[in-house]
């Protein structure tokens, strides 16, 4: 146990394709989180931003950009890049500052204005970048990796396209209830089946879109929270930010090959499972204690994989858990009550923060029609390119 920090505020800019700049989304989310916390921007001792790309050198910006837009007030600043795990690493940096006594109150912000269509690497000839190489040599987009994982599950575990579609059906039903979600229409299995194949066996409605959006959190020390009269705030109890263990034997984005297991036996846990395991270890909480989970459903099939990696069921039993209704609203362990990426789309630096926003609202009992009854413990899980993995555990 390394100590807890309080979540005093959570806020978002709704997801969508709004055609505006990421700064606007981030500032809107930040102001919403500050208002939710009952604090002024001047009360914030530190701001941590999850990076996004801006045209100028060096291009990757966040913390100071949001600080300037909110009005320079001399706060400590940091920016973090960890691809899809950027938001969780921003939370980790903020938490570390609070626990180290460097700041009482930290504002965490992530926002992005996503490009249209496939994500692609930055320009130029960059053969030392594995992300550039997989596009240049193989034309391997993100959905092709999702397709590989999905097909592998079908071959090894007997999952079906209908199982995958049911993940979309479930998540879209939740997204329909979420005012911050981009897609707010319930989707049927027939609609998934009728959508175009993108990367066999996955169809358009199996794969998450790219979106604009922003999310922010106000974190503080427990002592500060008490002084402000927040006697039982949502608390962050663990933040896992682990790397894989050599040899990483599951083909991961954006790699062209796995590590070889010729010289060293793989560990029992895959990378994704180790992400959750680290959070459980740190929190002293196991999967049996969870009230809900928010996972990175980049594809419908990948959500089933997370069930197993989070220990919600045994290996190969993800589809069974779904079919039983355990992960739907009212089930034993609801997953992606926010609607997930299926309903939000990806605004990369914001999404992991948005997951913690959802946990916060759920644990407070403020999630409206999406509310999980008696929610006490929640976990988020995500994975970023280049070996970044993160999970956050929050409790009430």
């Amino acid at each position: 146990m390394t100590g807890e920090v309080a979540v005093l505020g959570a806020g978002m800019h709704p997801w969508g394709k709004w055609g505006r700049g990421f700064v606007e989304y981030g500032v809107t989310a930040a102001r919403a989180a500050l208002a939710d916390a009952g604090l002024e921007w001047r009360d914030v001792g530190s701001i941590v931003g999850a990076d996004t790309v801006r045209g100028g050198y060096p291009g990757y910006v966040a913390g100071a950009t949001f600080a300037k837009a909110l009005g320079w007030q001399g706060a400590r600043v940091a920016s973090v890049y960890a691809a899809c795990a950027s938001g969780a690493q921003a939370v980790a940096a903020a938490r570390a500052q609070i626990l180290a006594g460097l700041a009482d109150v930290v504002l965490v912000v992530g926002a992005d204005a996503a490009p249209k269509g496939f994500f692609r690497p930055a320009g130029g000839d960059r053969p030392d970048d594995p992300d550039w190489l997989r596009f240049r040599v193989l034309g391997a987009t993100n959905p092709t990796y999702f397709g590989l994982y999905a097909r592998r599950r079908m071959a090894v575990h007997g999952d079906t396209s209908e199982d995958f579609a049911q993940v979309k059906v479930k998540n879209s039903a939740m997204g329909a209830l979420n005012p911050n979600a981009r897609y707010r229409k319930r989707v049927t299995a027939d609609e998934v089946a009728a959508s175009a194949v993108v990367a066999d066996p996955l169809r358009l409605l199996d794969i998450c879109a790219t979106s604009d959006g922003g999310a922010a959190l106000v974190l503080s020390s427990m002592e500060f929270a008490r002084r402000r009269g927040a006697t039982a705030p949502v608390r962050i109890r663990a933040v896992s930010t682990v790397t894989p263990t050599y040899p990483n034997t599951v083909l991961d984005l954006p790699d062209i090959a796995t590590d070889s297991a010729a010289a060293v036996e793989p560990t029992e846990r895959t990378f994704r499972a180790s992400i959750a395991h680290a959070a459980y270890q740190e929190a002293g909480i196991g999967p049996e204690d969870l009230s809900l989970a928010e996972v990175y459903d980049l594809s419908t099939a990948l959500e089933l994989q997370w069930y197993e990696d989070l220990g919600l069921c045994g290996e190969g039993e993800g589809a069974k858990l779904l079919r039983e209704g355990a992960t739907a609203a009212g089930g034993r362990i609801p997953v992606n009550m926010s609607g997930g990426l299926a309903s939000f789309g990806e605004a990369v630096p914001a999404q992991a923060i948005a997951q913690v926003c959802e946990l916060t609202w759920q644990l407070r009992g403020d999630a409206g029609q999406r509310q999980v009854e008696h929610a006490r413990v929640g976990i988020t899980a995500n994975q970023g390119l280049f070996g970044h993995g993160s999970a956050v555990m929050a409790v009430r």
Partner: protein
Amino acid sequence: MVTGWFTGDGDDFTLLGTRCSVCASVFFPREDAHCRNPGCAGGELAEIPLSRRGRVWSYTDSRYRPPSPYVTDPELPWEPCTLIAVELAAERIVVLGQAVPGVTVADLTVGAEVEVVPGVLHEDGETVFTTWRWRPTGVTA
């Protein structure tokens, strides 16, 4: 672009990796700087040919035109290409590659045997960019 990733022609075409002289870890794409095994103090990284045949770990296809830096002719309609992740038993590694033209997902199953062959990534009038492709051998699991 991928200097030293493969060599040879026809039946002699092979992918090239490297192997650590101390711990025998294998790397593809080749690792020439440092052995990445955290338990290895690091040795010489020698070039080795990889197995020419392996088993399909998984497969998919790309029904939409990939963005640059993948090179395609925007004047031509996009022909879906198939991607195969192949498990090489001796090296205990999975290597992703495109299937030879004409092979679709309908021709593949997990566990089926494939072999590596040379292929043309694209040509621009001056240069032919060679790459590796996976081709089913007809042997199934």
